[in-house]
């Protein structure tokens, strides 16, 4: 190991250069929002700038010593996204009236960023090799299930806009579903590694489809039921779709059989349709999604008001945006969390939105490259799973804002306000970095 540190400093140097660029951009963004909203530069910009910068720099040095061969793009891109999120959240804080209840969301986001980076560094220290996770597959499953059930428990469970995704622990609110996605990715990867031979067995052929032996359908039915349970009990289509989609992709990669994907999708759509018939709130949401500008949907309680305001904001931004601090994103309810993409689209324009989407794409593509470069099944599945969970979450939540899919309660990775989301996604960063550092042949994943 020690010799590699000296042989391969290139990646870390590249990472440092890109990070420094990110630090500069972050400073520029903070100055811009202050000048555009309060017309002066205020010293509290230092607080917002220095804490995440120091944390990211420290994390970079942890990488130099603990994972020197790790992918050099992941950390800078994550930092760019995370810092842009803080800027937007802080910018919205700045224009809140003095009587507003919550004017310190930006400061909390900074603290959570530092906490999340420290925890990610800790993961790098503790996890020398991701292969050790294989020993905890069923513990992971149990952990994932417990985390998913937590919001449903009395006393600590909390309902936000109809969805049961939150847990109250004293002063802290927590979305355990965010951490569950890591536990479940590890479980799926481990489980499928051991069962892939059996699942890939070619069964008899019926109607042109090769159907695997019935008993091998057990797990897919189990996961399907669990996803529907999430949908019905937590009342959130996004979370349910995220886990089920993740499972389908991993079973496909493990077995190479499209059959599972087709059957799974049909089962999920059928289940979701039945569930939506049984639950009244879903119908209103669907109407608001399909025809938001319709006056009846617009003025209905829980109707399309929010998404329409977001559409107005995005249209207002147009191609180049109003400039950071120049728009009126505060008109959109929940602009700091669920609708942060709308605020970015308004102030940075279509150009800025494309840049953000491109950053996510690069990040996901790094994960897939890592998966390809690994030789063993577990590593491959874990890397694909982590990459796909980011991609699918982006698609569901950003697609919700852009009306590609109905709105759900997921968060935008690294951008949206919220500690649990930051912690979970930074841990994914740590895992991807660990995965890229332990490639069988050094240098396979190049910058």
């Amino acid at each position, binding site marked *: 190991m020690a010799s590699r540190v000296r042989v391969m400093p290139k990646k870390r140097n590249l990472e440092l250069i890109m990070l420094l660029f990110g630090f500069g951009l972050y400073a520029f963004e903070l100055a811009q929002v202050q000048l555009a909203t309060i017309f002066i530069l205020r010293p509290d910009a230092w607080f917002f700038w220095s804490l995440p910068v120091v944390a990211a720099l420290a994390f970079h040095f942890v990488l130099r010593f603990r994972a020197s061969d790790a992918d050099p793009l992941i950390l800078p891109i994550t930092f760019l996204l995370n810092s842009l999120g803080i800027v937007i959240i802080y910018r919205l804080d700045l224009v809140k009236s003095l009587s507003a209840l919550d004017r310190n969301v930006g400061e909390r986001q900074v603290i959570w960023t530092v906490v999340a980076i420290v925890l990610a560094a800790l993961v790098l220290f503790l996890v020398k090799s991701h292969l050790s996770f294989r020993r905890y597959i069923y513990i992971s499953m149990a952990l994932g299930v417990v985390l998913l059930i937590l919001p449903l428990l009395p006393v600590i469970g909390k309902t936000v806009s109809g969805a049961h995704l939150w847990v109250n622990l004293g002063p802290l609110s927590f979305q355990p579903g965010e951490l569950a996605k890591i536990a479940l990715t590890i479980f799926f990867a481990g489980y499928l590694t051991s069962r892939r031979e059996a699942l890939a067995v070619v069964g008899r052929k019926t109607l042109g489809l090769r159907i695997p032996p019935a008993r091998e359908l057990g797990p897919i039915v189990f996961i399907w039921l669990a996803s529907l349970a999430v949908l019905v009990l937590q009342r959130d289509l996004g979370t349910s779709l995220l886990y089920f989609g993740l499972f389908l992709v991993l079973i496909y990669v493990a077995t190479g059989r499209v059959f599972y994907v087709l059957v799974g999708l049909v089962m999920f759509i059928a289940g979701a349709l039945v569930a939506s018939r049984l639950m009244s709130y879903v119908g209103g949401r669907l109407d608001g999604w399909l025809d938001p500008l319709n006056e009846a949907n617009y003025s209905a309680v829980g109707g399309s008001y929010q998404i329409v305001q977001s559409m107005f904001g995005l249209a207002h931004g147009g191609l180049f945006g109003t400039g950071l601090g120049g728009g009126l994103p505060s008109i959109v309810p929940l602009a700091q969390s669920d609708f942060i993409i709308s605020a970015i689209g308004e102030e940075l324009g279509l150009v800025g939105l494309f840049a953000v989407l491109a950053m996510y794409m690069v990040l996901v593509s790094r994960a897939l490259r890592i998966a390809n470069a690994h030789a063993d099944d577990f590593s491959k599945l874990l890397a694909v799973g982590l990459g796909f969970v980011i991609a*699918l979450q982006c698609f569901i939540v950003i697609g919700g804002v852009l009306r590609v899919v109905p709105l759900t309660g997921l968060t935008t990775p690294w951008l949206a306000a919220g500690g649990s989301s930051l912690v979970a996604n930074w841990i994914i960063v740590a895992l991807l970095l660990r995965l890229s550092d332990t490639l069988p042949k050094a240098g396979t994943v190049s910058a």
Partner: protein
Amino acid sequence: MTPEIKRVANVILLMFLALFLAASTMQVLNADSLNNDSRNQRAVYDGYKTQRGSILINNKPIAESIKTSDAYQYLRKYTGEQYSALTGFYSLYQGRTGLENFLDSSLRGDNSAQFFEQLNALFSGNPVTGASVELSIDEKVQQVAWDALGNKKGAVIAIEPSTGRILALVSKPGFDPNLLSTHNTADASANYKKLLTDKGAPLINRAIGGGLYAPGSVFKLVVASAAFESGNYTPQSLLPNPRTYTLPGTTTKITNSGESSCGGAKTVSIATALKLSCNIPFAQLGIALGQEAIAKQARAFGFGESINIPLKSTASVYPENMDAAQTGLSSFGQFDVRVSPLQMVMISAAIANAGVEMKPYLVDQIFTSNLTLLEEAKPTELRRSITTSTAERIKQMMVAAVSSGVSSNAQIPGIKVAGKTGTAENGVGQPYTLWFTGFAPADNPQVAVAVVIEDGGGQGQSGRGNTLAAPIAKKVMQAVLQK
């Protein structure tokens, strides 16, 4: 597993492609309609953030934005009522009308011609200043038209026949747009309610056809044009001239205005019938030509077409599927023929301009706050409405109508004026609609004008186009020629 991972990558690519497409649709393709949605508060806030450009006449503002100390930063100020038909109003809660509406993108600096200024604003942070608009209106002519109309309800419009430049556009009663641009919302909505329910309907722009009018005898210009264009008639062609005429297929008898004999002979020439404005010969001429020929001529003058000057005009109407009796009635501008003053002045201007109709326009120039010219009016030909020889013939008949006919009150000493009056009936007991349209000087036309007066000019059924409308037109033409 490698091929599977590759396929997963393709699926992810498709997912992101969907996001790229959706974002482009929302932020670019549908942006205009979303920005103009009445529920969108951003447009309101935005409109007041930048200093809106001025609307100018001879470099003097008739609408301008004044810096204020309230949250909206700028207040829209107008100079009086006489320009209200042009400017319309710009209001926080009632939206915008008139040029404030049709020139909105230029006035608020959002015109594509200001792209580089917008780009500069993006980087410098200085807001774009709206572009200002110089109108073609002549301050003096507008004033004369406004005063001449007095307290009568109606409209005056004067244009330059060779270019289509609009020199005056007045609609009465007017209103004070300041009543609506005030930032005091209670005042603004109370004022708006008052203007909406006012019997005089001041918010309607009568000149371009907030509603349309029966043209009466001025429509004879269209029928005469159709006759000459058919090739079967000349001004000397003789028409039967009975004292009364029963419309075919009915028992309805029509007479000439004042039951006159229209010269007294058994027959009358088209030229004389127009000069004396006789209904019976024109009813028969119209029936002989047929509604198709008249409709074709009406379209050639612009009937059935709304134009943007850039105010949007109401299209004038020549009815379809009439029987012979209805065709006869419509041939002297009754039945369901409906026109706007703009349409009438376009007809006069086309006759004056040797048959070529120019597109009327109100905006000479649009320029930025630092006086960079963004747009300049270029006179554009709409179409040839009639041949040069038809134009010459109609012109001579109109000259005779003023010099020795029933449109005599438009005479200007020393200047040959061409014109045609109209006195349209609006049903039993209803006051007449009074008209004049024409141009001067006949041999070198500088101005074409149309005047309409509603409600018989306050004289019920005793007012005539020649007694009330022609003198107003005369003053407006004089104002142009005396410059």
